């Protein structure tokens, strides 16, 4: 009873915590669960066979951001009698803007494993298959943009507001992967997984150039070369000035269940990606690993809209000459400038298929196992999105007891935070393997009071990654060595 109660509490609390998760969980890497091949196809669990059931085997929610937390958005008023947001007049906005980075990203992601299968074939060959439904959003906001929105452009006088790194990519796709891993040598194991990708919908922004230069005399030069690519059942309508006048959603296609399923199961946006990994067992105790994941792309061809905007515009103020010449009034000159600004943006609407690349992951790991059940690990994970590199470094202590219980405690530096303590837990009951992990266990919490309820929330949101699920695992016994030594010293 006590055990069941504790388990339930843990599960519930974990669920409560699990409002976020990283796709690539640093905690997951050294845990003995089948899903670790997502991070490195060369890794294999200790069980021989695993089956992942739809929706049960893995629900992964991941929110990464590197620029705000709950306390950055809300705070208690100085009088202590109310809660105020960052938009409140009493809120010192500089507290928020001072924390902004040059690149601020927000990456909410969610993935549901629809199906998973892995099995050993032969002595060292491991074959795995999985189908995942993935929704990913990658929003990169240049710090200058956020500062511009909150504080205005005065601070940029004499500088350039660099918005070249503004990026967004929202993708909803399905991946079906088939891979295998095998010992190539005694100490080297390689793994590879090919994934067919089926895009459902996408919005991405191709930013070739976007900047606003503000001179000391406040002259503004706008340089924009953007392309918004959309693969979705929406239509954009331009007016005579080539400005988007209206957007319509094709609701008719989703009025029936079959319509919805047809849309979701369409294969009009194909893609492919590759995971490649390697594990080098230098010694029994010392292992190295490396992997490249999500090396791939999706070609979007269905329900395409491309909205291109180019602009080369310089505004240096109303030229007084036109006014004192008597040719124009101030109002007329102002209208001309606005018209020039509008006309400087050349917007075109087309339906040209486009391609998006998946964010590339590169992992490097090293582990030391002083004993068979305990491993100390070091993992470097680099996520490459466009020109952006993000690095996470994790130290982990991993305990694996008889393939029945696996727990990991991690310390990760990532997202400009150095207080990420992660925890993972997996235990097997028969062939039901339950796992739950979080890359960052909130140490400190905030309490939210709302309509009489009290809801705890982690104080920091920078890394919210939780994954949980249940696998069916078979062949979990640890093999004992039964061979005799060749030489017996008497």
């Amino acid at each position: 009873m006590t055990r069941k109660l504790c388990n339930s509490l843990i599960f519930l609390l974990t669920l409560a915590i699990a409002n976020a998760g990283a796709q690539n969980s640093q905690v997951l890497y050294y845990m003995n669960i089948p899903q670790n091949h997502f991070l490195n196809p060369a890794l294999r669990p200790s069980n021989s066979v695993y089956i992942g059931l739809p929706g049960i085997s893995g629900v992964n929610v991941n929110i990464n951001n590197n620029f705000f937390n709950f306390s950055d958005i809300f705070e208690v008023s100085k009088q202590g009698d109310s809660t105020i947001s960052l938009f409140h007049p009493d809120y010192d906005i500089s507290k928020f803007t001072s924390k902004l980075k040059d690149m601020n990203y927000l990456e909410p992601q969610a993935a549901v494993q629809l199906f998973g299968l892995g099995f050993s074939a032969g002595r060292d060959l491991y074959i795995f298959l999985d189908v995942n439904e993935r929704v990913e959003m990658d929003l990169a906001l240049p710090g200058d943009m956020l500062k511009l929105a909150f504080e205005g452009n005065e601070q940029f006088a004499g500088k350039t507001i660099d918005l070249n790194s503004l990026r967004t990519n929202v993708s909803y796709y399905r991946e079906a992967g088939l891979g295998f891993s095998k010992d190539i040598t005694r100490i080297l194991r390689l793994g590879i997984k090919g994934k067919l990708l089926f895009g459902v919908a996408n919005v991405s922004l191709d930013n070739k150039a976007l900047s606003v230069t503000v001179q000391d005399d406040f002259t503004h030069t706008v340089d924009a070369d953007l392309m918004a690519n959309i693969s979705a059942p929406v239509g954009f309508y331009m007016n005579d000035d080539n400005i988007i006048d209206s957007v319509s959603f094709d609701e008719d296609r989703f009025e029936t269940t079959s319509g919805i399923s047809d849309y979701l199961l369409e294969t009009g946006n194909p893609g492919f990606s590759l995971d490649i990994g390697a594990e080098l067992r230098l010694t029994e105790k010392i292992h190295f690993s490396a992997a490249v994941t999500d090396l791939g792309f999706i070609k979007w061809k269905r329900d395409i809209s491309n909205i291109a905007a180019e602009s080369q515009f310089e505004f240096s103020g109303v030229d007084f000459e036109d006014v004192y010449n008597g040719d124009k009034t101030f109002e007329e000159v102002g209208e001309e400038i606005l018209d020039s600004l509008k006309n400087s943006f050349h917007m075109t609407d087309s339906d040209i298929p486009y391609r998006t690349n998946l964010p590339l992951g590169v992992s490097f790991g090293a582990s030391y196992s002083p004993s068979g059940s305990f491993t100390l690990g070091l993992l470097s994970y680099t996520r490459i999105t466009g020109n952006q590199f993000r690095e996470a470094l994790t130290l982990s202590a991993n305990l694996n007891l008889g393939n029945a219980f696996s727990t990991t405690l991690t310390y990760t530096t990532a997202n400009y935070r150095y207080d990420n303590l992660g925890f993972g837990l997996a235990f097997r009951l028969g062939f039901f393997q339950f796992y739950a992990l979080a890359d960052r266990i909130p140490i400190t919490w905030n309490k939210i009071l709302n309509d009489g309820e009290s809801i705890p929330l982690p104080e920091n949101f920078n890394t919210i990654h939780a994954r949980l699920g249940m696998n069916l695992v078979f062949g979990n016994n640890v093999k004992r060595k039964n061979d005799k030594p060749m030489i017996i010293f008497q």
Partner: protein
Amino acid sequence: MKTFAKIFILVLLITVPACIRETYDFDKLSKMAHLSPTWVVPAVKGDVSLSDLVEANDTLIFEEDNFVRIIFRENSFIDLKIEDYYDLNDMVSFSETYQLGRMNVSSFSGNISYTLDRITRRLNPALRAQFVALNGTTSAFPSFPVTVLQEGTYSLFPNFEYALFDEGFIDVKVTNNLTAPLQNLSVTLFNTAGHIPVGDPAIIPFINPGETRIASIDLADRTVRNSLSAIVTVSSPGTTSPVYIDLAGSGIEIAVTARDLWVRSGRIVVPPQTISALGGDGVDTIGFDPGSGTQISYISMNRGDLSYTIRSGTELSSILSVTLPTTLKSGLPISNTVALDPNTTVSEKLPVDNSVFDLSTIQDHPYNMIPVKHEITVSSNGRIINFSSHDEVQIDIRFLDPDFDYVKGYFCQETESFGPETFDTEISDIINKISGGLYFSNPVLTFNYSNSFSIPVEVDLRASGYRSAERTDHQLGKISLKFPAGPAERDITGSFVINKTNSTLPDLISMPPDRVILYGTAQMNPVSSVNSPGNYIFGNSRLSASLEIDIPMEIRMNNLQFTDTVGNFLRPDNEDDNQFDPADLDFMQINLYTENGFPAGVSVSLVLYDSEEEINRATVETDEILKPAPVDSEGRVTLPAESTTKIRIGREFWDAVDQSDSIIFVFTMNTTDGGLKDVKIYSDYRIRFTAGLVVKPDLKFKAE
């Protein structure tokens, strides 16, 4: 191990709730939100030169080196003609009325005789009988006492009916045809009508036989009729010697003969006779009245007419002859003869074209007069007419439309005013709002004139500067003009410059006035030269002058302020239109960068004024938004002056907008070096500026 792990986790989860950093009560979540970014935007830019702002025209001049001048011109500032000074058109007004005076009439005579027979009949009978007895004999002629003979009547005299003589005599000639002497002979003439004696009796004391003796009767002041009778008284002493006594054949004759007859009045026949002394001495004068003090000595005439009117007030026919002895035409005096019928008026014109009038010949009055000789021949044409010595002839002479070649004389010290000529700067709206130190260093007034009066002329030029109710008067100078040396030289031009060295012109211009009124006087012969009448006026003499006021833009300004009050245009007319809440704006700032190529700096203040409460609600002041550019020793800018100014307008300003009905702008200007030196303005001076706006709205929202 498993147990340990579970316990570890459980403890962790239990202890976690204890690490609550903050509690956020979303039931008390404030729905207020605000955005207050600070935005900068370029507002206005410009690169403008003076020549871009104003165009050169007739008043504003840009020279070749771009130096700027303001020039006011008035081409007909002075335009004085002869008639402005002198009225020579009607300077002759001659009107004289002459009485004819006494007339000379022809003589008249008559004769009566008395025989001895008639004489003795008037004796006593005894004596008569004696003579009768002696008739035809030669004997001693008896004496007889004074005896009045029978009155005899002469025949009618034909040349008059009656006449009052002013002068004249009747000679009574007695012829003694008796043979005895006569003595104590007295002849008394009587007008038959009324038997009024005419004069005193003519007395002849003694006449020998055969002799004639004459005695005269003075007719002065006597009226004589044309029918006279005579009463004779005579006596005789007789003779001692015998003489032939013939009663019928001897007697005495009494003849009367008038002589030297001048009639004063009467009904007479006036024989043709010339009266050369109309008015007395035969020489009259025509006076010229060119005006008080003017003394004309000579006139050369191009064209003109002497207009005369002669009215005859007599029954005599007249022929009037007029001669102007000192008015020569082709070297000969001008004369004219006019015939007048009795009691008629004749009006005629006597052309005097191309003639010269010498008005200096009369010794006692060697100017403004010409002698005129006139004589009149009158006659009654054999008719008896009523005549009086008071009968008149009136002569009127006018000098019409003279077209002079020139007139010489002394034209006294006539003064004529010219102007006022108003020069309006047409910027009174601006000038009346200026205060402080403004100085135009070198204005010049050039007075160009053309003078065809050969008379010394002095122009007294004055100016009044007006600025609103303020007025200053300046005498700009007394200018002696050049004049032509007449009569050969007819016209001369000249100019005179008035500047800071000889006038207070800079002070006038530097008021600055919104209008300047120039006026003055031009005086002929400023120094009296009455004794040297060498002035000449020509027929087309005129004094004309143009004026040019040249104001080079060489100035200095020291705290020159321009103040203007306008309605508060920031306040919307309709409260409903006011969608701008001052609370929505934390501040607004204008960042102004200028490169000022003008040698003048400007600072600005803006005041929101509440006229009801009479207080300033808010003030925005700036330092120099334009710094004056440095200049070289000539006052020309060497390089532009850069300045950066930030004009901050805070929330309190916008709060005051609704309470203020007026905005007062005050611009303060100083030229380079604090206005202590002159600077020059060139049309290529430029101002480059950029103005940016820094706005920090404070937008508040409240979520529902």
